[in-house]
């Protein structure tokens, strides 16, 4: 006997997730309206992102390339999407200053999208003719073949700055340590908690977890983008309050709230 088909049009076990999503959307709308009305939205300074300008400037002065690594994630990973938007901002600055940037890719879809994004960034900067086709290129979809190729590039080409933004796995320490040995200024941002310590050890600046997702808005400084970070902070405050309340109620013998937060 096979399992009976679930023909329901809504899974009530996921109601809490739907409520959370709707709350987040509400926070987003409120903060966007605030931003559009001219309300000030404060974003704490992120040293890693401030250092991006310094790194690009250093590469320009030294006449050496910037190596931008988007990680091993594919287009279904939000970390990769964040990496693409950060790369578009970095490419714009690279185009403005006239230095060179290389982006070796692990995923061919990411490569195709990044190529188009960088091309447009150069066009926006009014330097479309300076974009070098092939600067964003495919390497391999095998983890350690990718590592071998990229570390080889680091050692041979000695980039002035190496930027790691996206989803990284076991290759994080190989890449960051080799980059460290070459003396490049290294800035990393990763959404994988287990890989963060490696980047912290080997890089000059590291964006921890959510900071990767805030980076694009932080660099762009557009009010609507900043509003999304404020909404994220509101959601985090609510999550923290709910966790504290659930723990307190559970300790008092009322586990209801804790069970309500459980997801399926």
């Amino acid at each position, binding site marked *: 006997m096979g399992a009976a*088909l*679930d023909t329901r*049009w809504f899974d009530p076990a*996921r109601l809490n997730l*739907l409520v959370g*999503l709707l709350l*987040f959307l509400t926070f*987003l709308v409120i903060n966007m309206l605030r931003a559009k009305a001219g309300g000030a939205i404060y974003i704490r300074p992120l040293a890693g992102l401030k250092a991006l300008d310094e790194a690009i400037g250093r590469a320009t002065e030294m006449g050496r390339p910037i190596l931008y690594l988007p990680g091993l994630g*594919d287009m*279904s990973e*939000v*970390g990769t*999407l964040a990496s693409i*938007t950060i790369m*578009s*901002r970095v490419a714009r600055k690279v185009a403005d200053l006239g230095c060179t940037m290389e982006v070796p*890719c692990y995923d*061919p*879809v990411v*490569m*195709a*999208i990044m190529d188009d*994004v*960088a*091309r*447009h*960034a150069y066009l*926006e900067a009014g330097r479309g003719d300076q974009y070098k086709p092939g600067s964003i*290129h*495919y*390497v391999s979809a*095998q983890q*350690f*073949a990718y*590592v071998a190729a990229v570390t080889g590039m680091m050692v041979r080409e000695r980039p002035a700055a190496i930027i790691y933004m996206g989803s990284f796995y*076991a290759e994080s*320490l*190989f890449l*960051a*340590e080799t980059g460290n040995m070459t003396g490049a200024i290294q800035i990393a941002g990763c*959404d994988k*908690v287990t890989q*963060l310590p*490696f980047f912290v*050890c*080997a890089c000059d600046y590291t964006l*921890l*977890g*959510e900071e*990767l*997702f805030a980076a*694009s808005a932080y660099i*762009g400084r*557009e009010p609507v*983008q900043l509003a999304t*970070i404020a909404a*994220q902070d509101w*959601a*985090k405050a609510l*999550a923290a309050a709910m966790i504290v309340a659930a723990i307190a109620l559970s300790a008092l013998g009322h586990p209801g709230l804790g069970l309500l937060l459980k997801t399926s």
Partner: protein
Amino acid sequence: MRFGPIVLTFLVGATLIAVFFIPNPKAQAVNSELLLWATIVYAFALILGSISLWNTHARKIRFKLDGWPYSLVTLVTLVVVTGLGIWQGVGEGTLVNRIYNMVNSPLASTMFALLAFFIASAAFRAFRARNVEATLLLVTALLMMIGRVSIGEFIWKGFPGFTEWLLDVPNLAAKRAIAIGVGLGAVSTALKIILGIERGYLGRSR
């Protein structure tokens, strides 16, 4: 040019969010279909990737750039393995399968084995007591290492339990705090893209 991709992103993103809440087989079929489309797109992108790989390495060989012999090896391997794959297929016992098992896998394992040395050099740098945070890291690491070997238990019976507590309480709390931030950041980024607030992936900053 701008409107089409934004509308398409919204429709696909909103559909996938809706499907997450609907267990009905009809809705799940939509999900499966979209995933199949993604696989087809990947297959075509792999052709683009191969062309990109060829162009990058052919340029290195043509201009005799640093490390060009490696590029030659890459291109010869690309042609030979692709040719063998088309000729014999990639199943068990074929030449491609044997190359994969006898060349590619050992090479990947060798690379992975190097990780121990990279960990040692990174740990050496990280464990220098330059400031309060680095000293805290150094002390914690030392306690962890002692507590995980038998001499730790010999020094103090509670050492293994203490290291477990370090892992399960302060360490896990920090990891979960970062994970919650990552989760909310991911939701925020996904919503920004679905709602068309973030358009960087289209090649436009605003």
